[in-house]
């Protein structure tokens, strides 16, 4: 059953597919920060804005190809990811150097209680092994499926499944240790 955010994003994408440009404002409002986070994690802060800009153009162009049953956030973030990869290829640059950079975004804009949570998450992530950190990044940051994660990490689906489970357990443990 789709959650509230997926329902809203589905509605916005379907409005955009009908040719209503204002629905793009809503999409940016709902998922702009996450788009920016994924882009930053892949190309760094300087190029992230260009990636988000180009991704929004692609979303506007291809919204009619989106199937309503899909996960809308995953569809949008896949576009961001592919756009970032295109830029990396074009510039012949390397992707963001370390996974740790993906989790250094906690900003002063957070409400104090949320800032504590964000910092705790960043610290907990840094306690994971590099492959666990990457698996969590691909699953929760980029919204990839287990199959996609397996392909991305060049491991079997069952190995990816085991890795994700272990990473989730370790992350939850690190989070509760951080709270106590």
């Amino acid at each position, binding site marked *: 059953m789709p959650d509230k955010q997926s329902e809203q994003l589905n*509605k*916005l994408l379907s*409005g*955009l*597919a*009908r*040719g*209503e*440009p*204002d*629905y*793009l*404002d*809503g999409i*940016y*409002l*709902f998922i*702009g*920060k*996450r788009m*920016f*986070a994924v882009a930053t994690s892949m190309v760094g802060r300087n190029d992230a*804005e260009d990636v*988000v*800009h180009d991704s*929004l*153009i692609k*979303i*506007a*162009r291809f*919204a*009619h190809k989106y199937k309503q049953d899909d996960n809308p956030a995953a569809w949008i973030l896949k576009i961001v990811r592919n756009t970032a990869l295109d830029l990396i290829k074009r510039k012949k640059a390397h992707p963001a150097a370390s996974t740790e950079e993906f989790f250094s*975004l*906690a*900003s*002063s*804009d*957070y*409400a104090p209680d*949320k*800032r504590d*949570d*964000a910092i705790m*998450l960043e610290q907990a992530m840094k306690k994971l092994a590099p492959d666990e950190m990457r698996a*969590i990044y691909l*699953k*929760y*940051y980029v919204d990839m499926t287990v199959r996609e994660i397996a392909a991305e990490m060049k491991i079997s689906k069952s190995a990816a499944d085991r890795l994700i489970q272990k990473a*989730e357990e370790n*992350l*939850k443990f690190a*989070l509760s240790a951080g709270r106590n």
Partner: protein
Amino acid sequence: MKDKRLEEQFKGYFEGVEIPELPNNIVADAKKSVKRRDIRLPRFAKIASIAASFVLVFAVAAVLIARADFTVVQPEGGNQSGSAGAPPTASTYTADALLDPIDKDVYALSTDDENYKSLKFLKTLAYKPNAEVTEMQTYSFKDSGEIAHVYAEVTLISGARYDATVYVEFTEETFDELKDYSSFKTGTYRGLSYRLETVYPEDEEPVNKLYVEKDGVKYYFNIQSSDENSYIKCLELLLQK
């Protein structure tokens, strides 16, 4: 399948991610790529769709009638005017002493109850694709249970970003926190009188504090935006039929 707890944790994390100030062109450029599509339904589908709409309308009406409470409640003192909120004795009221937050569906209230039609603009906002109502709370008087005011927090993106807190007040008396609004400078927009004051917090965008009284209901807005005329957005919302 994502772990619920971790998913929530990441959701909160992404909400606070620092992004650059909403660049004017970032969404505007992309909008130029949107092509209006003429979605033509086959004839039978059109007929089926119209028929389905009728069925839906009848079903909703039947549910509403079945759930309606037709008992007549006599107001204290025999006043049957049905006005929204009997005035309390003090000229201002405070949250701690007199108010209770109550669980009330504001959107349903705005359509089902004549006395609260003034709340309809909040429903309009909630349905806008480029707006989000992030909080909504109704407060009633502890003693009478009558609605004192509705508080809402809204974000709208339309050219610029607008973050607003809104109070809609149904009493003659004024909520203590809002008593200063009646002293702001007056103005008129498309025949609607308002009072306005702009404050400039340090290192932040200006806040337009707007007060409007319309059809016996009082509206208070605090709108923070880079758009100096952000209050016009609110006035236009109130002017919408």
